Structures are given as structure tokens and as C-alpha cells.
């Protein structure tokens, strides 16, 4: 207290905690990810639910018209491949859409919820840095959701394949032919590739922008995120009668990405030849990632300053 300091300052070593204080750097990261899944349970419930609903529909369809599949498999022609894998592609696309929706809503809320419920004071009372927290939150749409959703996709593929095989066996169809048409491991990896490239890395600036706004806005984060974009786009249209900015943002979100494959037949067509080199070599990708990094740095800085709302 206010008593005069009674001795020369102790050696700084004495300041160091006596108890072992070693936590490996990865533990706060791991537990921060766990925290996100506890807080946002929809991150795993939604894809599983969508997959379950789709599987149920697929089951009804298979039971309803068991002969259709047998006829398709028996046809042996090249173009009927698309018809066989059609429902597989639809299911993958559905899950990708779910992933995009979840990513958008997650990012718009990520740094807002903890300020709104004042729990930021609890999180900040623990030895987890703002950098760790923000990077973990960014990793959810950029890495974790793509991996998770692809895993759900893979399981769904497997169940659909087993179901189709059962139907074929029951109707006397050619199961081997079906399996030849549906290399589900390859298809699942393609889904992962597609999610990571077209729906994570390419739109990274969009997600990071949402994260940044969620750490800044006091309420209506989504509105604050969209409003400036609409305003800039509108101004440009009025002033120059052009739509470069709107096109730019649109192409970042859903639309023209850097080339990720040689054909448009995607998401999971096993005949697709992917072109990761072309994707990684595209300047647009790196410009986007640079902008995303700037947004993230700003979000980290904001979290340092922000308290509860």
C-alpha cells in the first residue's frame, strides 16, 4: 500500500511465477475452437441436419422408384454417369450452400456476441491473446467448416451409396457398375477442394470483413457490413454509371473465382481435372488474402480496445 517501498526492487526473476506455467501454444488454440463449437452448436448441427433430411428424401426416392436406378446403371453409356451421380452432386451442393450460409452468419456474430452478453470480460480474464481469439474465429469459415462439411459430405455419400446398392441388390441390378460410377473417396476430396478454394480462400475478404464489422458494430452487425458496400456500389453507379465495385464484391462472394478446375462440371464430378496451380497462381487470390489479413489485423486491434456493449 502506501507504505514506502522498504527495499530495493527484488530481482526481476522473483517476479516469475514459481509454479510450472507451461501451456503449449496449441492448447489455447484447441480450447478456443472447442469454445466456438460449444457456443455455436449450429456449426455441426446444421450440416448434419441438412444431410439427414437429404438422406431421408433420397431414401423415399429410392424406395419409390427402385427400377430407375437399375435401368440407369445398366445403360453403360458415358453420359448417364451424370444422371447416376446427379443426386450425389445435388447433396454436395446443398451442403456447400449450408456451409456458406453458416459462415456468413457465424462471421457476422463472431465478435459481437461476447460483447453483447458481457462474457468478453470472462474471456479476457484468461491468458488467451486477442490474436489467438480472432484467428481462431477466422479459421472457422476459412478452414474448419470446409473440413467439417466435407467430412459430413463423405459420410452422406457413403450412406447414399450403401442405400443405392441395397436397392440395386434387391432389384437385381449391377452393384459393381454403380460403384465404378461413384468413387466416393475421390468425390469427397473434390468437395473438400471445392469448399476450401471457391468457398473459403477466395471469399476470405468477405468473411474477414464480416468479422471485423462484428467486432466494431454495437448492433445490427449484418446491416453495418452490407450498408457501406451498397452505398459505394450505389455511388459508383450514380457518378460513373459503372458497376465495377458491385461486380468485384459479387465475384468475391459467389461467382467467378480464380480457375479451380478445367471444367465447370463441379462440385464433385470425378472426371473433373482440378487446377490448384492455376488457382494458387492467380493474383486475385493473393490480393484477396492480403485484404483479408488487413481486416483481421484491424479486428484484433478492435478486440483489444472493445469491452462489453
Amino acid at each position, binding site marked *: *500500500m502506501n*507504505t514506502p517501498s522498504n527495499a530495493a526492487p527484488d530481482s526481476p526473476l522473483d517476479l516469475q511465477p514459481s509454479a510450472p506455467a507451461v501451456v503449449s501454444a496449441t492448447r489455447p488454440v484447441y480450447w478456443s475452437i472447442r469454445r466456438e463449437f460449444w457456443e455455436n452448436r449450429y456449426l455441426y448441427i446444421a450440416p448434419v441436419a441438412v444431410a439427414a433430411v437429404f438422406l431421408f428424401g433420397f431414401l423415399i426416392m429410392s424406395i419409390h422408384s427402385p427400377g430407375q436406378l437399375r435401368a440407369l446403371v445398366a445403360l453403360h453409356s458415358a453420359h448417364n454417369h451424370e444422371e447416376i451421380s446427379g443426386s450425389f452432386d445435388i447433396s454436395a451442393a446443398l451442403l456447400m450452400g449450408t456451409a456458406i450460409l453458416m459462415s456468413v452468419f457465424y462471421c457476422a456474430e463472431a465478435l459481437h456476441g461476447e460483447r453483447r452478453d458481457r462474457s468478453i470480460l470472462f474471456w479476457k480474464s484468461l*491468458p488467451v491473446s486477442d490474436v489467438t481469439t480472432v484467428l481462431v474465429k477466422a479459421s472457422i469459415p476459412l478452414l474448419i467448416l470446409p473440413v467439417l462439411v466435407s467430412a459430413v459430405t463423405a459420410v452422406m455419400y457413403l450412406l447414399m451409396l450403401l442405400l443405392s446398392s441395397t436397392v440395386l441388390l434387391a432389384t437385381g441390378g449391377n452393384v459393381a457398375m454403380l460403384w465404378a460410377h461413384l468413387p466416393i473417396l475421390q468425390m469427397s476430396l473434390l468437395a473438400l477442394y471445392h469448399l476450401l478454394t471457391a468457398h473459403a480462400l477466395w471469399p476470405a475478404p468477405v468473411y474477414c470483413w464480416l468479422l471485423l464489422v462484428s467486432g466494431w458494430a454495437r448492433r445490427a452487425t449484418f446491416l453495418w457490413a452490407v450498408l457501406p458496400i451498397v452505398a459505394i456500389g450505389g455511388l459508383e453507379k450514380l457518378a460513373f454509371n459503372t458497376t465495377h465495385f458491385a461486380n468485384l464484391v459479387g465475384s468475391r462472394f459467389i461467382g467467378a473465382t480464380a480457375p479451380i478446375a478445367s471444367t465447370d462440371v463441379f462440385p464433385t464430378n470425378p472426371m473433373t481435372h482440378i487446377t490448384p496451380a492455376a488457382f494458387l497462381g492467380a493474383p486475385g487470390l493473393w490480393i484477396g488474402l492480403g485484404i483479408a489479413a488487413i481486416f483481421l489485423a484491424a479486428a484484433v486491434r478492435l478486440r483489444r480496445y472493445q469491452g462489453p456493449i
Partner: protein
Amino acid sequence: MACIEARGLRKTFGSTVALDGIDLRIEEGRIVGLIGPNGAGKTTALNAILGLTPYQGELKVLGRDPWKERDQLMRDVCFIADVAVLPRWLRVSQALDYVQGVHPRFDRAKAESFLAKTTIKSTSKVRELSKGMVTQLHLALVMAIDARLLVLDEPTLGLDILYRKQFYDSLLNDYFDRSRTILVTTHQVEEIQHVFTDVMFIDRGRIVFTCSMEEFESRYLEVTVHPERVAAARTLKPMHERQMLGRSILLFDRVDRQQLTALGEVRTPSIADLFVAVMGNHSVVAQNKDKYEGVTR
């Protein structure tokens, strides 16, 4: 080595001065009550100490700069910043898992044994707990961390008296071990007066009074003066005078006890009484700096 050391600590929000050049030094092993009216700057001061807000001036907590090294500092510092900051979606078991996961000095068994004394179930979510139980849970988490500084900002606000008493009893019996430092702000001063080793009064962003409890007990005396001796008592320069039930109660600083016994009934004042006296003088003589320096040494 001081636990907390501040020199010229300032913080402004726009044109509002929240901290107006605070100098303070808190040694390790003390339990300090930081007391002040609403808006005096208590929470701002604590936020600066905890690295939650930037500031001007010099501040070292356990030898670290809290603003620059918050995450490092939080290995040695715990705080309960308010009641009900635990997220409502969190399960009790998840809270234990998480703190155990990220905190190098968390003793899970200790937290669990503390929780075992309560009615809190490990499967409950925070939203299912009463306000008092949430505080118990937070306290269980904090007390199981082997920290060197614990900061409590109105930790028992809104709790009933049973929980409040239990809270401070646990803190003293199960946690405080004389090497730890505890910094508390509260409005329920009377209840926890016996807990403190030191008190500090803060007003308008300045520390206006600071004193250890031993010093407090030896320096300040309160006298319920016999009506006919009031004039005589006033010549001894009381620092404060108030009326209660028609009697004058005078508060003296460094006046001989023998001398006062002759005037009426003498006792040690409560911190709240001294607070009123110091704050009353402070606001009255805010312009008259000399007198006010006299009060604050």
C-alpha cells in the same frame, strides 16, 4: 516489489476525465478496498490494471505493462469483473474444461471440491443457474487458479446477504494466504470492512485517501458527544460532524482517546463513516487544496 504501481495514471473519454493522474502502490499480500462514489473512476482504474483499456502514465502490475501484455499477465492475475459475465450458453463442465485447458495454474480438483459444496450440477448451463450460483461458479473457477493478484469489481452486486457473506468467507478462508493480493471495489463497505488490510478512497479520478486498517483504527475515532460538550468538542477540530437522533457525532483524526472520552461515547468509526467524512470534506473544500491535502496526507 509492489504488486501494482502507478504513476500519473490518466484516462480520458472525450472531455470526461475518468482518471486524473493516479499515483498508487499496492504491496503484495494486501487486501485493498477501493471505495468511491459512482463514476469516481473505480472501474476505469481496474480496467487499466487488468489491461482492458489503454491509459496514459506509468502502470506496472506484477512488473508487467498490462495493456501490452494482457494475455501474459492473466496467468498471474484473475478477475471477476462484475456479476454475470459467464456466458449463458456455457455448461459448468465446459467452464472447467476450458479454464483447465487454457490456464497453466488451474487446479481442477480444487474447483470441483468447491463446487461440491454448492448445489451446482456439472451438467447445468449457466443460464439455468441463479445469480448467486453463477457467482459461486465464477468464484470456484477463480479460486482454483493459483494467481498472485485477484481483482474483484463489485463481485457481489445484486446478491442476497447470505451469498455475499459466503463469498467473502470463502475468499478469506480458502483463498487468501498472505502472499496473494486482492483488490476489491464494492458499495457494501460495511459488510467487508473486516476483510481489508487497506482502504483507498477514489473520487473524481483521484485517490483522495489511503490508509492501512491498523492505521485507520489507531488514527480515527468517532465520538457521540454529550450535548453540553459539543462546543468544547468542536475546538478539537473534528474532521466531520453529523447529527443522529438529535445527538452530534464527531469524527476526529489523531486526537488523544483520553481527551475524547471526556466528551462522550468513543468508538472506532466504520469505513463508511470515514468515507462520508472524507468525501464530504473533499467536495466542500475541493477548491481549498491545503485542507484537503491535510486529510489525505
